[in-house]
């Protein structure tokens, strides 16, 4: 097996193997576990760096193993995969650091970090999957690896949340499976190709293809939290903060959204999907989700729940971008995949910091918290403004391309959806910022812990600050080479150029 064929597998194992080892580590071997975690994350980062460089220079990385006669397990680094892999790898490193700080002295850490690594492995697998069955495989693995993380706290509420999560995702997985088998039995192939592999079936199997599309999207929509399939997400908030962060920014929700990108772009191909007339309804569902999520977020007092509904709304931007057929909108959707991840992970880190340091869980308790924890709240502010779409932050870039794409495609209504959502985003984020910065702090915080002169533990503080800077950089330096935007353009060029 030469280097080009082995690299994707190597990237996968750089988190799988440490994860498996961690399972068997005794609870008290903190140093070994931390070394393994960080070592794996750094190694993966380096490998992904090599891959990005290679893909940019025309290398073709592909690992292929036979799974069934005629069906291979394929890990391939195409441009879309690289986008998602890079996102998850970078954010994994950050989240690992955060989780090490967050879970200091809590029980079951070996179990936690083991599943944590598995979860990332599955995400990377989802990203690198070169055909639908490989995707399905890792997608289900992701479901399974995330479940222990959600119920990690072990309370009754957590168990309930875990159950809800499983009910939704396994049902979704089943739909996905049916869709996958069906399309396989029709097309005889599942390989992701840039313009889809079902083009020749459009005339003969039109109805079947539409049903398959609906099945696939419904299956993926569960994870992507499309309304009305979003019910698990707010409940899953009982998980520890790093898990929520990972769930919302990188792993589960993103896997769903990424899957929809794959289905529309690489299974059906945008032209075929548009020809089938399925992109319109998909865009409508995404639009409804965007507005509904924002509306619901307005009324939440629990910080993490508000963020959860915000995720529901934001992730649908990606889907909206894909469903509006057109290069600019696709760029917007793809770039939002990255941007939303970076921004949302910051917000969850900050929420975790507030909960860990001051015992704050509700927005009504956040008065004046900016004075107590200025760095955390500064990071929160940047990301929240980014979510609203304030220039020049990351969210602005996404909205810009989405709006542009909508106008290009002659779907002006999308612009109003975007505007409405921005307005609602402002409505639910700005009061938090106002309370945090301008209201007078209370006499005592709910449950305060102190770390000397610092506002909180440095392992908890560094990750959100870093990701907030990334948010800033992703927007400000959008036109620099290797920025998410440039990469999204690169992908879209491949998708739309013959």
């Amino acid at each position, binding site marked *: 097996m030469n280097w080009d064929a082995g690299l994707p597998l190597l990237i996968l194992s750089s988190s799988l193997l440490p994860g498996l080892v961690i399972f068997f580590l005794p609870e008290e071997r903190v140093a070994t576990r931390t070394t393994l975690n960080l070592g794996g994350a750094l190694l993966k980062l380096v490998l992904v760096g090599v891959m990005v460089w290679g893909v940019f220079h025309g290398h073709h990385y592909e690992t292929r193993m036979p799974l069934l006669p005629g069906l291979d397990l394929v890990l391939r680094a195409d441009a879309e995969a690289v986008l998602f892999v890079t996102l998850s790898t970078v954010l994994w490193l950050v989240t690992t650091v955060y989780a090490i700080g967050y879970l200091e002295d809590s029980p079951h850490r070996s179990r936690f970090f083991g599943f944590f690594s598995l979860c990332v492995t599955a995400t990377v697998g989802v990203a690198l999957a070169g055909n639908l069955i490989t995707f399905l495989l890792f997608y289900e693995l992701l479901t399974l690896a995330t479940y222990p993380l959600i119920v990690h706290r072990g309370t009754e509420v957590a168990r309930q949340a875990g159950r809800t999560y499983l009910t939704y995702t396994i049902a979704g997985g089943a739909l996905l499976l049916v869709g996958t088998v069906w399309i396989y039995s029709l097309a005889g192939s599942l390989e992701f190709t840039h313009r889809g592999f079902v083009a020749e079936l459009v005339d003969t199997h039109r109805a079947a293809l539409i049903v398959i599309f609906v099945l696939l999207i419904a299956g993926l929509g569960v994870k992507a939290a499309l309304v*009305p399939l979003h019910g698990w997400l707010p409940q899953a908030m009982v998980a520890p903060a790093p898990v929520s962060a990972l769930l919302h920014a990188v792993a589960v929700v993103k896997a769903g959204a990424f899957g929809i990108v794959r289905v529309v772009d690489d299974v059906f191909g945008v032209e075929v999907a548009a020809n089938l007339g399925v992109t319109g*309804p998909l865009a409508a569902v995404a639009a409804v989700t965007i507005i509904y999520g924002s509306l619901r977020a307005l009324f939440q007092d629990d910080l993490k729940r508000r963020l959860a509904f915000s995720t529901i709304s934001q992730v649908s931007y990606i889907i909206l971008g894909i469903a509006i057929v057109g290069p600019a909108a696709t760029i917007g959707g793809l770039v939002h995949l990255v941007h939303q991840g970076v921004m949302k992970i910051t917000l969850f880190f900050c929420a975790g910091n507030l909960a860990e340091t001051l015992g704050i869980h509700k927005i009504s308790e956040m008065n004046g918290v900016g004075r107590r924890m200025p760095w955390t709240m500064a990071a929160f502010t940047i990301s929240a403004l980014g979510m609203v779409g304030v220039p020049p932050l990351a969210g602005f870039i996404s909205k810009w391309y989405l709006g542009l794409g909508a106008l290009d495609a002659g779907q002006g209504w999308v612009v109003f959806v975007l505007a409405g959502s921005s307005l609602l985003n402002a409505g639910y984020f700005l009061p938090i910022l106002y309370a945090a910065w301008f209201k007078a702090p209370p006499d005592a915080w709910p449950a305060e812990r102190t770390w000397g002169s610092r506002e909180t533990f440095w392992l908890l503080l560094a990750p959100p600050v870093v990701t907030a800077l990334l948010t800033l950089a992703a927007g400000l330096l*959008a036109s620099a080479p290797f920025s998410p935007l440039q990469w999204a353009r690169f992908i879209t060029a491949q998708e739309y150029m013959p």
Partner: protein
Amino acid sequence: MITTLGLFLLLSVPGLPLLLALPALRSRLPWPCYLAILPAVILLLIPADFSIEVPWLLFGTGLGVGGASRLLLAMSVVLWVAAATLLRAPSSRPADNRLATFFLLTMAGNLGMILATGLVGFFAFSTLMGYGFYGLLVTTGNAGARRAGRAYLGLLILADLALFEALLVTAATTGDLGFGAARHAMAQSPSLGLYLSMVVFGFAAKAGIWPLHFWLPLAFRSTRPAVALLLGGVPVAMALLGMVRWLPLGEITSPKLGLIIQGIGVAAMLYAILTGLIRGQLKLLPAYAVIATTGLFVTALGTGLADPAAWAGYGNLAHYYIVSLGLGLAILTTTIGWLQARRGYPVTPAMQTDDSNPWFERWPGAVVRWGAKIGFYTLPGLRSSWLAKMGCLRQICAWQRILDSIEHSLQRWTFASTLLLLLAMVSVFLAAC
């Protein structure tokens, strides 16, 4: 060499204030507010006109200085130096730290707007300035200022949305988002009407032009002098500048819109003069002066839209008007502040507010309160707002309850509802396709 120097200078004009806005950095340097304005002063002193393109910034941003923008820059420098001096004067409480942060952020936005040569850059800097200025208003502390700040923020968000739409329309029409090219392209675009109305609304909201002016008197009445001094020169003048830069004036003839805008301008002037006379508070004088002068400006703008020839003749006066407006207002505010101080009025008089309404305070969601406030203050003088508030809240309550019950049933019957919904979704999709 010159280009490197120019690049460095132009970038540091908004960049240095931004950097200094970081509290950690600022606390170690003496005179941060003055230091921050230094690059702008240096830029003023270099006689050459030059501009740069920064391709890696956003979608490629241009910055440049020359002609009118030099004049505006000079005005801003004067204003900011004066404000910085006033800011330092009263005391150096620790809370001033945050004030300084917002001060510097606003400064960065303001200077950036003046230097920006493209729509996107201008827009980004104007947002920065807007949020920074909101911070300045709110940090000042008393209830009136906070209310003014909230109203301003609400308008700001709406304005940014409108401008964003306008930007999108422009970007969909032309690839080049420099001012000249964009204006030219929009003049021929079929979506000109949308563009014009969006731009006019956006900047009108930012500038506090008559029907959207209600935050201005509040702000003038309750902020500290340094901020009041900036009010005319920063948000108002810059928004007017935006209109001049964004609207394809002199290239199009739009009598209908021109007439409307003229009407608004005249109404604004009348309103300002009448209310100013009736209220007759000295401290509010600058506010009504702003409303009147912006009204005048808007009237001129309307004329320009209706009659391109007129704009071609007098258009270049617009910049001078903006400069004199900013400076004049600053002088007026300072004078009045000084007069008041001599007469012994409290510098920031306590305002009577209805913030202490008990049922209102009890209402949990701050958002709802905000939404309500922003919503109602856009209709000045409408005394039926009480009723509207009640009705609106009840409606929101009802909606919330409905949504909650949907959520509850979804979560309670997860399995059944998931299946049901999946099926429903599938069938709906099928019906739709």
